[in-house]
């Protein structure tokens, strides 16, 4: 596989996205271009450069471990696509 190609079907599965055949083709071509472009970063020598995860780094931000009110069960379920008995409903996971 050339450096600018991307196995869209495989990566989409990793990301839990079902795509149409049309989307696979279009995204493959479009993302191929983008990946070709971002390879530009290989021009730079980054030896010895530390990565930046956050531009304004704050570390070990702590708060008091106190019980505080959160969403009620009813509020937490209000936007659920399916709920019963105070729980989210899902297809069966284990037979």
């Amino acid at each position, binding site marked *: 596989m050339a450096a600018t190609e991307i196995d869209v079907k495989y*990566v989409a599965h990793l990301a839990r996205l079902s795509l149409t055949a049309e989307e696979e083709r279009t995204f493959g071509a479009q993302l191929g271009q983008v990946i070709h472009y971002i390879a530009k970063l290989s021009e730079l020598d980054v030896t010895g450069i530390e990565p930046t995860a956050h531009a304004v780094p*704050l570390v070990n931000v702590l*708060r008091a471990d106190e019980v505080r009110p959160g969403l009620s069960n009813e509020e*937490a379920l209000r936007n659920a696509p399916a709920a019963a008995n105070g729980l989210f409903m899902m297809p069966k996971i284990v037979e």
Partner: protein
Amino acid sequence: MLHYLTLAELTARLGRREVSARQAMQACLDRMSKVEPRIHAFISADAPDALAQADAADRALAAGVTHAQQPLLGVPIAVKDVIAVRGQPLNCGSKILGRFVSPYDATVVERLKAAGAVVFGRLNMDEFAMGSSTENSAFGPTRNPWDLSRIPGGSSGGSAAAVAAGECFAALGSDTGGSIRQPAAFCGCVGLKPTYGRVSRYGLVAYASSLDQIGPMARTVADAATVLGVISGHDSRDSTSAPEPAPDYAAALDGGIRGLKLGLPKEYLVGGLDPRVKSALESAVRQLEALGAEVVEISLPHTEYAIASYYIIATAEASANLARFDGVRYGARVEGPDPIQLYCRTRGAGFGSEVKRRIILGAYVLSSGYYDAYYLRAQKVRTLIRRDFLNAFQQVDAIVTPPAPTPAFRVGEKADDPMQMYLSDIFTISCNLAGICGLSVPCGFAAAEPAGAGQAGAQLPLGLQILGRPFGEAAILRAAHAYQQSTAWHKQTPPC
């Protein structure tokens, strides 16, 4: 023309009881009835709730509450559809959230309400803030009030268009790679992206967590400063929010810019820059010099790597953040025989093309074998970009650039070419990577090209971007205010 008062003029009249909060809110609703069929800045608005809030503000005013106590008392302010307002819909411009209703207020909304604002409306945006034109909204595009054949910019295109068209007195947007500054420039209003950590993001739906910030959009610099003063400051519910106390931005506006040293980065004045944008920038620089600023050329040598670095980091973070939209706990669901198929079908049906592309790209750059080559390298390049700015700020107090290489482009012009759309972000992206602050202030108009489908003789707004040191919002607001006080660009209103 109540709807075109500035926020400062409105609060003065509210304070003198010459106008009521209900009249101000009604003026926005009337204006919306008139222009929304063409502009579509709003996804929805709850008029009865807005008028009830306005009535409450009128009762407070009648009881003697002043704007010194509540700086936004009775002021209608609209919110981008990515920020939670209790009891109101939240869709992020997407289908995937279905009929989601926010169970709580974002901190910024809580602060607006505490300051007396009438918080209303869900402003249109590119889906999950991914885009530069507001064409990626599942609710249809927003049009530019200055030329309906053009995009308003994005992703906060609804916010910019609503402010420019007089549908609200200020708005909140969010900016991950330019999403406040670029639409502000394209619609002729003021937009400010605060320093990373300046404004709490509790209640902001995350796109790229190391880059996202909420910021104000308004018709004047002074109005943006007032709103910023209300929403900024530490919040224990956002662990990335900075502990530094927020200064009084509105009080810091005056004083002028005599002796201020401004840098003009040479890397921003090369190929691809529209001559109309270049000439407006040059005029603005001359004006700033006339006001007493010293302008010197500087270098930000890693500018050309910003887009590549951004589209790796932002998409990687997005692929992780958007994993939560799986049809289980909230939003729309497409059923499947097992959980995996339920996730895949829900996400396949619920997300639009640009969101899918970015999730796929983000998952790809994080995947085994590519992590070091893409994500880790992009984070190292981010260090170099940040260093460029910190070095520049040793020589200058602020940096002036165009916010975008062109004026607003046409609807559809870049919609099918993601790479061209990404390249249009070249001048705004570095600011987010470096975590500094920046704003766009109106600095002129470009005559629309006569060819094509544009409105004959349309005037397209142009912006001046001013970038400042981390937590240097007061300085860039002061520079922009001095510039704005000496120009009249912001006094023009669109023909819509």
